[in-house]
């Protein structure tokens, strides 16, 4: 399938994907070094979906995300340093340390709120689009959520309402259960759905529904262009199920760096791929896949991709330093922002 904007656009989206990958590697290292504690989730393996869908949005549009939000924030233009500072609980974080990794969001970039409760933000995405429709802003919304969200009743209610009330919202279910170990095998498959698929439900409600390989940058880019055009034109919901193979580092509850820091050269030098996680490196990793496609299309050569990577890494290293230098919040502000308006 041809991308919506040709090789140059794919290269740009690849930049977003790579930035997300390097960002997540920094998050992993910060956790491993003990700079923050608690549970956290990485977007590795799903970068193509977030980058391609969000790449089609304008400033009037909004997105809503989940516990696995880092990639959505970055694709929407979030500042990596402020995002890392937020994950570290620093005053310089996007939310002053109140949000943490679970709830990264930034109203300044059209991302008002992130719910870490499964399915929690799906109705908010529809509501934001409903508001935009009534206020005639011309904006639409995208709700990102996992396959697990389909086990929650509120998601069904929202789909039905979005269709009934003709709400201009794009639902993007990132189904990462393919390839996941089940819980009985010690893994963390995130849903128990018939056939492992969610798309029959929106189809049954009459919502235009598409299934796409979520790790295929070009395919998601093209589909997202069509789907968002349709949402804007028809003023009703469209549903996309993006299937991605589970990243080996995501098999248990806590991420592991099972596949190590991404070696971009594997995209053009198959000799660097060993036997361990061979399938991931050779076929599944969306970053390596996109790099191979760019080389194929002649959009860039290996040297250009490597130079791009060096730049991205330098940017993330700087973001890491900025975040670590950010001061801790002032405990005296612990009661701020509970209610809007003057303190009471």
């Amino acid at each position, binding site marked *: 399938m041809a991308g919506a904007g040709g090789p140059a656009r794919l290269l740009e989206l690849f930049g977003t994907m790579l930035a997300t990958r390097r960002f997540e590697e920094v998050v992993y290292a910060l956790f491993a070094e003990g700079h923050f504690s608690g549970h956290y989730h990485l977007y590795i393996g799903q970068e193509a979906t977030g980058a391609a869908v969000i790449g089609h949005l304008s400033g009037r549009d909004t997105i809503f995300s989940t516990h696995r939000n880092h990639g959505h924030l970055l694709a929407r233009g979030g500042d990596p340093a402020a995002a890392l500072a937020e994950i570290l609980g620093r005053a310089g974080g996007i939310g002053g340390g109140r*949000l943490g990794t679970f709830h990264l969001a930034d109203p300044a970039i059209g991302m008002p709120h992130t*719910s870490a409760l499964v399915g929690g933000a799906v109705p908010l995405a529809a509501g934001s689009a409903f508001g935009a429709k009534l206020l005639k802003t011309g904006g639409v919304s995208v709700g990102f959520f996992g396959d697990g969200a389909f086990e929650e009743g509120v998601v069904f209610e929202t789909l039905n309402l979005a269709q009934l009330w003709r709400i201009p919202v794009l639902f993007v279910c990132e189904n990462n259960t393919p390839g996941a170990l089940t819980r009985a095998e010690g893994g963390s498959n995130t849903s128990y759905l018939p056939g492992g698929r969610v798309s029959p439900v929106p189809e049954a409600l009459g919502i235009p529904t598409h299934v796409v390989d979520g790790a295929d940058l070009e395919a998601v880019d093209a589909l997202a262009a069509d789907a968002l055009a349709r949402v804007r034109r028809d003023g009703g919901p469209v549903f996309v199920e993006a299937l991605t193979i589970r990243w080996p580092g995501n098999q248990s509850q806590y991420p592991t760096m099972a596949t190590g820091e991404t070696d971009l050269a594997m995209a053009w030098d198959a000799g660097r791929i060993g036997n361990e996680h061979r399938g991931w490196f050779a076929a599944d990793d969306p970053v390596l896949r996109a790099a191979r496609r760019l080389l194929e299309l002649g959009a860039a050569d290996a040297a250009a991709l490597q130079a791009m990577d060096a730049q991205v890494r330098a940017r993330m290293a700087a973001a890491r330093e900025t975040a670590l230098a950010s001061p801790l919040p002032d405990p005296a502000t612990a009661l701020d922002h509970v209610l809007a308006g003057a303190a009471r």
Partner: protein
Amino acid sequence: MTYSEALLGAIVEAMDEDERVALVWGSLGGVSGIKLDFGSLRDRHADRIVDPPISEAGIVGIATGAAMAGLRPIVPIGTGSFLFRAWDQLIHEAGGAHYMSNGRVTAPLVIHIRHGMRGGGGVQHSQSPQAMLWNAPGIEIAMPSTPADAKGLMRTAIFSDNPTVFLDHQMLLRREGPVPDGKHAVPFGKAAVARPGRDVTVVAASLQVVAALAAAATLAADGIEAEVIDLRSLVPLDQEAILNSVGRTGRLVVADECAPRCSIASEIAATVAEKGFDLLKKAPVRVNRLPSHVASSPVLEDALRPDAGRIAAAVRGLMD
């Protein structure tokens, strides 16, 4: 033995003993945050253990119906914040079942959650829903603080004929302590004197008992003897134990991780003001989580926490 080992021990024992203890959802192994060997339990009772999808409302509703049909389901919801998804099924259906049958139907299910500030849980993974639950009729509430009570109260919860919400504090799961062997039951509605003292009564439950004991230890160094009352269950509540203690000390501090409005501390203070006004030398003091959401940043989280330092300071304020 750790708290979580003791808790799970009670469940294993009940499942082996009574085939009505039937729906132990598969996420139970996650109760501990520590990997526990559940393999043989699953093998022995495969038909009574099922894996939960992310469907809190449906699961609590199905467990309620199954309890009406004669099972004694144990439903681990995981993080207490997720229980709100099942609120309607819990409050209206499980909580209403007995009343709505004019006393003929019972719904003996146990809902298990891990509540509280866990360090980095943030707004949506740190809830302490016990005060909100306490406002609902028809539901028993157990909140142990020791491994022995975790075991003994769980047994009582399983064999109680009412819906029970069983709350473990996230930070108690690794607490060590002696645990009686065999079938150990701790009745609901019997508070424990976790530490005797003559000067002031500190009432607490769950992790706040640990904080109160730490406060009592520092106060003792200054010659102030705090009596720590561990409520163990909120429904039923052992009012007598609280009033007896206040009768001896004349002073009351209540330590509570809920935000102050309509909290555990509010209810205990009101109860003592109403029924033991003459016993009090000073107005009761509530030590609560400050009235805000729980921030993700540890610095802001710490600023909200009712801890030993704040409990000790509250006691000192009563002692002049």
